C-alpha cells in the first residue's frame, strides 16, 4: 500500500513528506512507548499517540521514517524541522490508535510480530 493510499484511508493530513507519497509501506508498529520503538531491528511505519520532539528523535535513532500521529495531536514546528532534516513523512489523523490499526490491518499492512 502506498503512503498516499494510507493517508486517504485514514483521512489524514500530510504534515510533511509530500515527496514520498508513492512509496510502498508493508509493515507497521503501534506504540506510545519510545523505549519499545528503540528495541526494533526492523524499520516499520510507526503509529503513535505520543507527539513530541522525542517521538521524532527516537524515530531518527531507530531509523524509522514514516510516522502516523493519531487523535489529531498537534505536530509542532520543532517536530517538523527535525522531520524535514531527516526526510521523514508525518501523517496526522483524527482516528484513535485502535481504529487506525484496525483499518490498516484490514487493508493488508502487516505486523512485525
Amino acid at each position, binding site marked *: 500500500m502506498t503512503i498516499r493510499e494510507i493517508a486517504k484511508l485514514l483521512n489524514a493530513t500530510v504534515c510533511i513528506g509530500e515527496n514520498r507519497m508513492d512509496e510502498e509501506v508493508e509493515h507497521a508498529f503501534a506504540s506510545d*512507548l519510545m523505549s519499545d520503538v*528503540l528495541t526494533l531491528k526492523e524499520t516499520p511505519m510507526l503509529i503513535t499517540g505520543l507527539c513530541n520532539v522525542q517521538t521524532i528523535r527516537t524515530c531518527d535513532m531507530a531509523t524509522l521514517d514514516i510516522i502516523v500521529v493519531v487523535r489529531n495531536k498537534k505536530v509542532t514546528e520543532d517536530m517538523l524541522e527535525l522531520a524535514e532534516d531527516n526526510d521523514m513523512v508525518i501523517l496526522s489523523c483524527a482516528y484513535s490508535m485502535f481504529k487506525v490499526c484496525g483499518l490498516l490491518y484490514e487493508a493488508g499492512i502487516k505486523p512485525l510480530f
Partner: protein
Amino acid sequence: MHQEYTVIEGDFVNAGKASSSVKKTLKQLNVDPTKIKRVVVALYEAEVNAIAHAYGGKVLVDIDSDKIKMVVADKGPGIPDIALAMQEGYSTARPEVRDMGFGAGMGLPNMQKNVDKLNVTSEVGVGTTVEMEVNF
C-alpha cells in the same frame, strides 16, 4: 576522531543531539547502516538515562577505523544495584520521564543487546559511567 558533548538534566528537547551527530559522522564514514543503528540506539538510551535519572553529564566518543568507543558519564544519584537496574522492566523513572515515552526499564538491556562491550560503573551519590564499544 574524538568528539565530546554535554547533556543537561531534564533537557529532553535536546536528548539525542549527541547520538544524532554521531549518526551523521558514521554515515559520512560509510559505516554499515545496521552497525550505525546499533551504535546510535545504544548511545541514545544512555544519553536519555543521563538526562532522565541523573543531573546531566558528558558524552565522549572515539571513532577509529575498526570500532567506536562511547562513554556517557553523569553526575547523579548513581545506581545502588546495577544487576537489578539491568533487568528488563526495572525502572524508577519519574512521571515526566514516562510522559516523554520512556521509563519502561528497557534501556540498559537494550544497550546490552546492541553493543559488543558494555561496562556500567556507578557510585551512589556521585554518578554513573556507561562505557560501550561497537566493532565495525
